[in-house]
């Protein structure tokens, strides 16, 4: 019998749940992995759930989210209609698709795909059994269990998720698309864990989508560890488009070895409460990380991006651009922390956060931090919040363009700085369309799916034609 967290998720309940289900939780663990799990449980006992008095959670109140009752599963939920999981893919984009339903890997054919070129992808639970040494080498090496309560919680409880392994020197022939779908008749609490390894000189494009299909509430606590080997390349996309009753805490940890290259994009188009914890650690010299974020929120939606870039090695470069448009009663938080350690000579770190508020009820907290312990560095940050450029508005209107159209053009242009960084053309096209829809107020959750995928081919109609000719 799977438990129901009736009134709220509390730390006490979770600790008790762990004690009562230790065997079930660690069923797929090797002794080493089981040790990591147990340590996380111990850490968990010393931590507490966030409240707004904590520095890192000052602007994001989880009280309401945690206070709802949720179903919690220690066994895979019933796969209702597997086809739906695969319906939300990006049109015309040839990808390898990995589906997760309610946090569990959906094994359509086999739980773990082993491709000819050595690439492994599939269920993490399965991989623990089949490739224990490989998993042990990476698992838990990037995540911060001891300080971050949701990461500790995830490590203690995770039972499945996605494992992707690209061996050294291998270039993944097509983008991999991870689709994480939530569909359940009741409120559901889920915790999944992903482990992505891009070996030395290897390359991967990864599109990671969080979607929900209905209006039912959910609380997701997802931890993803990503390892970039020497001179590896990862082009990573996180698409967040879940319903307004969902809470998503997504913690992603990048460990970047020397001369590796990371492009990571966070496109948050819909969600009740979204919290992205993004940590990039340079574990060797000459690494590069570009982190781009775009958030378009309205109603009472809440987005909180906490980004830490840890320059622990010399001669690395990082560039963060996070931009947001907040409408109605939406709230946005950007907290960026660039840490340049004592040994990190010749660091080049940039950090930009720009926001537009469309109403007097929207709110942004922007906190771009720099912490620098070396003089031979180039570091800068900037944060602007304000209206659309009034000069540009006047210019557009003077050419006969209506105020409404001008506003739309400028908002799209504002978002475009981030959208334009998307390297996969089909995906960029898709996101452009979604951004247009979102700005027009059309991207609301539909009966079936937030992505309107029942009509993917239907041309979008805009009064402003922002398509490229």
């Amino acid at each position: 019998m799977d438990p129901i967290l009736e009134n709220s998720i509390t730390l006490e309940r979770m600790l008790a749940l762990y004690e009562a289900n230790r065997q079930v939780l660690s069923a797929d663990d090797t002794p080493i992995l089981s040790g990591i799990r147990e340590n996380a449980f111990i850490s968990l006992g010393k931590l507490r759930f966030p409240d707004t008095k904590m520095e890192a959670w000052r602007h994001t109140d989880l009280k309401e989210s945690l206070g709802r009752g949720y179903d919690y599963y220690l066994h895979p939920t019933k796969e209702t209609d597997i086809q739906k999981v695969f319906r939300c893919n990006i049109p015309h984009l040839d990808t390898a698709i990995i589906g997760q339903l309610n946090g569990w890997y959906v094994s359509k054919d086999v739980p773990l795909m082993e491709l000819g070129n050595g690439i492994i992808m599939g269920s993490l639970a399965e991989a623990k059994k089949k490739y224990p040494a490989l998993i042990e080498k990476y698992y838990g090496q990037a995540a911060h269990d001891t300080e971050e309560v949701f990461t500790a919680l995830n490590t203690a409880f995770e039972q499945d998720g996605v494992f992707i392994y690209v061996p050294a020197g291998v270039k993944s022939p097509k983008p991999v698309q991870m689709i994480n779908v939530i569909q359940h008749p009741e409120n559901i609490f889920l915790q999944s864990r992903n482990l992505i390894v891009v070996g030395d000189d290897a390359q991967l494009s990864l599109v990671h989508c969080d979607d929900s299909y209905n209006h039912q509430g959910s609380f997701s606590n997802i931890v993803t560890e990503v390892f970039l080997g020497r001179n590896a390349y990862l082009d990573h996309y996180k698409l967040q488009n879940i319903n307004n009753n969902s809470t998503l805490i997504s913690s992603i940890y990048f460990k970047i070895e020397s001369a590796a290259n990371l492009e990571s994009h966070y496109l948050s188009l819909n969600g009740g409460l979204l919290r992205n914890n993004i940590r990039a650690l340079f574990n060797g010299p000459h690494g590069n990380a570009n982190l781009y974020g775009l958030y378009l929120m309205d109603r009472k939606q809440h987005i909180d991006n906490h980004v830490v870039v840890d320059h622990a090695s010399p001669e690395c470069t990082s560039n963060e651009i996070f931009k947001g448009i907040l409408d109605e009663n939406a709230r946005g938080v950007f907290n960026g922390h660039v840490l340049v350690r004592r040994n990190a000579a010749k660091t080049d770190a940039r950090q930009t956060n720009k926001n537009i508020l469309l109403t007097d009820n929207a709110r942004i907290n922007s906190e771009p931090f720099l912490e620098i312990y070396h003089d031979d560095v180039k570091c800068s940050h900037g944060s602007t919040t304000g209206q659309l450029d009034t000069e540009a508005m006047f210019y557009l209107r003077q050419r006969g363009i209506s105020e409404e159209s001008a506003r739309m053009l400028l908002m799209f242009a504002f978002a475009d700085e981030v959208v334009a960084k998307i390297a996969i053309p089909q995906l960029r096209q898709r996101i452009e369309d979604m951004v247009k829809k979102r700005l027009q107020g059309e991207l609301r959750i539909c009966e079936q799916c937030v992505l309107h995928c029942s009509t993917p081919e239907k041309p979008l109609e805009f009064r402003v034609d922002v398509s490229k000719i």
Partner: protein
Amino acid sequence: MLLRIKDLHASIHGKEILKGVNLEVNKGEVHAIMGPNGTGKSTLASVIAGREVFEVTAGEILYQGKNLQKLAVEERAREGIFLGFQYPVEIPGVSMTNFMRTAVNEIRQYKGLDALSGSDFMKMMEEKKKLVEITSNLTNRSVNEGFSGGEKKKNEIFQMAMLEPTLAILDETDSGLDIDALRIVANGVNKLRRPDNAFVVITHYQRLLDYIVPDFVHVLFEGKIVKSGGKELALELEDKGYDWIKNEQL
């Protein structure tokens, strides 16, 4: 009468800049407005175009018999008023093509015309680009972004050609142009002159008027037009300098 400005007073943040301007412009005419810096030339252009930061405190602007006060910026533009900016703003992320296509089609819609097809629009772009000798591919460039000073001004004239206004006000279009760019801009303007449109050219120097020959020259000084005459007035100004006007006013 295309434009009639009567005793126009305008202020910004409570400070009066225009202190009773009178001006009449007929179709087929080119008017030059000259004057020292800070006397209200750009303000006059902005007020005609409808920049909201300026407050009209007295007087009126009649354009084709309509009181402009009641019209929004874009409505004035759609009625055929074009402002060539002294400092065209850069708008990153908005492509020139997209920008012009939106403008052309919204104006066409206002006039009850069908939107231009993509290919007709592109043909029109190519044609008008030649007029001001723009050789670069504008499709992939954002509005004014990364344009040199000369390119920006050429772009203004290009847009004027695209939108075919009835009244074009060119605010110091000559400033910052080298002699070649000046010639190109002026040629563009001259090619667009027709009996059914009019130009108001605002300039600090006489130089531009060698290329765009005005029918009338007005001197704006301390918020008022203090002197009007033919094209020879510009030469006289060049000769005697603005101190002449200042001294006359004292």
